[in-house]
């Protein structure tokens, strides 16, 4: 499996109180544990099971993902911004691997 690659699309700047749309995607097969390989053996489940967005450390949006979220999970959500600062995006995978990105947001 290729290394899961996360991507986010966030406006570079925003005005105080504005609601911005954040689009996120991580390249990941989201293996459900329901499929069989060519020998008839179950391919073990391996999915991104949680996505978290932090804004200056505070959790501002979170998602639990299950098997029915499509491969390369895309999540877009909205956030009301008040101060400049750091956005952290965290994807937790089964068996403990963590993928993360951060973004500096400028708010006037």
């Amino acid at each position, binding site marked *: 499996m290729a290394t899961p690659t996360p991507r986010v699309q966030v406006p570079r700047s925003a005005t105080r109180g504005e609601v911005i749309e954040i689009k996120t995607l991580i390249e990941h097969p989201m293996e459900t544990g329901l499929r069989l390989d060519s020998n008839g053996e179950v391919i073990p489940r391996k999915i991104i099971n949680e996505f978290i967005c932090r804004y200056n450390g505070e959790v501002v949006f979170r998602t639990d993902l299950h098997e029915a*979220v*499509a491969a390369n999970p895309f999540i877009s959500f*909205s956030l009301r911004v008040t101060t400049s600062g750091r956005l952290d995006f965290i994807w937790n995978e089964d068996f403990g691997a963590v993928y993360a990105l951060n973004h500096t947001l400028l708010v006037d």
Partner: protein
Amino acid sequence: MAETTVAQEVTRRTILAAAIAGGAGLAGVAVAATPEADADAVKEARRMTGKVVTLSPRLHLLMPSHFPNGYIVPFTLRIDSKMTDTDHVRQVQVLAPRNPINPVATFYFVPGRSEPVVSTRIRLAEQQDVLAIAEMNDGALLMARTFVEVETNGCK
């Protein structure tokens, strides 16, 4: 082979664009709300969560009524809420009653920070009512259902 890849990419982008463009093109809302189907949806929710839910027009579950590819069905959810400390959505659970594994995702919102709008793409095994159950800050459980038909089983 290369052509196939390009075709899929175009499809995906088109879908994304449609999803982003908003509810207008997504016909989920147009499906007639029959009392039988509503009652069935409430019963299914009870079976899967053990809780009593109420169908509510405050939830808008926007999905195509018919989609060829069960692996990447566009999903947009919007809830009418001011997201104040005294009136907000805590979380929304999404369920697919006819998938081999029912839970799809749960979204958690924060008053004053998140707007209760979220989009993603989900897998559906067969045609079914997709359910979204919102837990409000007062503990009320509000639900929306949208019937979606798919041509390929997205859970194989």
